[in-house]
């Protein structure tokens, strides 16, 4: 069973009273243990696609299956529950809470997870901060960190509830080359730890790390397996 499966997925927007098909008749499968790179021109629908996989948006028609379960017709609250248990998000502009410390930012997703008690949250937070190498920045606020450090906090936060799927929308868009490499390496390690990692990126460097490259062009997706 694939981690994510898309059957006949379609998406369109209405712009100036004109229907524009962003995604046409998609049939795709995503597996655990692989890193997928999604590429394409600006406005080609990469973010839209990623948001749909992340249950933050819906296909107009077609099915989205996560772990074999059709989630297209679930209620918002049920989708929220799936996001909590299964999906970690990483954004281009980091999207951290500016009024919370590094520690608090990482803790936040865990407070809705019934499987964790307070002690476990503290331990897991420390563990995550260590993995992204920010132990010395625990009590700092996002504005006191560099872009690369902020994105590492966001990665730690995305991993908080041990999701199987990691979705990253241009995670290195605001970073320099050196930090970009660091982040891509981290994402690669995650995929090697049996997670399904999907990364949207403009940087051709991602192709060095990806197992599969998907190119969106005029609503269609072209698949390139890199062996």
């Amino acid at each position, binding site marked *: 069973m694939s981690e994510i499966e898309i059957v006949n997925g379609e998406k369109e927007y209405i712009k100036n009273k004109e229907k524009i098909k962003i995604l046409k008749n998609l049939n795709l499968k995503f597996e655990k243990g692989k890193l997928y790179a999604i590429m394409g021109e600006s406005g080609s629908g990469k973010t839209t696609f990623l*948001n749909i996989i*992340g249950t*933050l*948006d819906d296909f107009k028609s077609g099915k989205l299956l996560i772990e074999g379960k059709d989630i297209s017709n679930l209620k*918002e*609250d049920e989708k*929220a*529950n*799936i*996001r*909590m*248990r299964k*999906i970690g*998000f990483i954004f281009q*502009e980091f*999207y951290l*809470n500016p*009024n*919370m410390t590094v520690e*608090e930012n990482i*803790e*936040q*997703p865990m*407070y*809705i997870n019934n499987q964790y008690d307070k002690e476990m949250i503290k331990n897991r937070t420390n563990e995550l901060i260590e993995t992204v190498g920010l132990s010395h920045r625990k009590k700092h*606020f996002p504005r006191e960190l560099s872009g690369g450090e902020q994105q590492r906090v966001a990665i730690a936060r995305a991993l908080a*509830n041990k999701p199987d799927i990691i979705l990253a929308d241009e995670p290195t868009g605001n970073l320099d080359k050196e930090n970009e490499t660091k982040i891509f390496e981290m994402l690669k390690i995650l995929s090697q730890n049996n997670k399904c990692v999907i990364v949207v990126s403009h940087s051709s460097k991602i192709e060095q790390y990806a197992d599969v490259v998907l190119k969106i062009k005029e609503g269609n997706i072209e698949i390139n397996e890199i062996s």
Partner: protein
Amino acid sequence: MFKNEIKSLFRNKSNKIYIIVFIFLFLILNLSLNLNIIIDNYYDDKMQKELEKAIESSKNQDTAFSEDMSELMKEYLTYAKKINIEEIDRMVRTSNGKELTEEQQQKIQNMQHVESIERNVEKIYTIEGLSDWTVYYILVDSWKNCDDVQNYLDSIGISSYVNWGTSAEIVENYEKINNLANIIKYTICGISLLVLFVCCNNIIKNEKENAKLLNVFGYKERKIKNILFIQLLTILFLGACLGYLVSQVLTFAGSYYLLKTSINVFNIYNIIILVMMILLPIFILTRKFNIEYKSRRRKL
């Protein structure tokens, strides 16, 4: 559970400013809600002084007081002494010589502000000479409420006097100012509500991005709204409590000068209004607030 959210709230500079705004708002609101009490206290005081003056002049007959008035004042004083009250400005006296029926007496007794009614036979000089009159003394809870009794007596054709003597003008003024105070009070309530709405709206707007982030993490809509609700409530409640405290300190300090009597900010009526003022904006705002990530406006 909400500890981090509350903490983060106070790290936001603009929220600190809103707390200060709310302190002022609730202070002003509280004073204006108590405006009638403040005015009452002021007029009670003024009335008392006026009466003392009247009593003094009735004792020294050589003042400009009219014969009639001083006679009447004397009567009042005698009667007041008899029933042992000090504030004679609370008495209504009938003087037609007509008897009130049992029913009418009962009706007066049952009126809202009437404390007691006393029948008395007095010798009074009339044009024909000395004759026996039946006079009723009606004790009312405050000089402000003598009107009700007088209106009733008028309606059954019995003339009456309230012994405020020269202070009739004060009573008229009091009514005018009280009406004005009501207008001011409700205007301030309205403006406060508006300001509360605008402030709450901004506080929620500031938290919008974070709320949407919670939606991404998988917080259920209900939970996110609860968090927003608690955050707003914390700021508002803090502002309201501090505003209350400041107004209490002010009235305590001012009780010697301006307000004479400390106002009771913990009166049930005020508390109901304040609680409603706190809950209303929160209710409306959290209800219409869209926390879905989809609706997130992207930075361009």
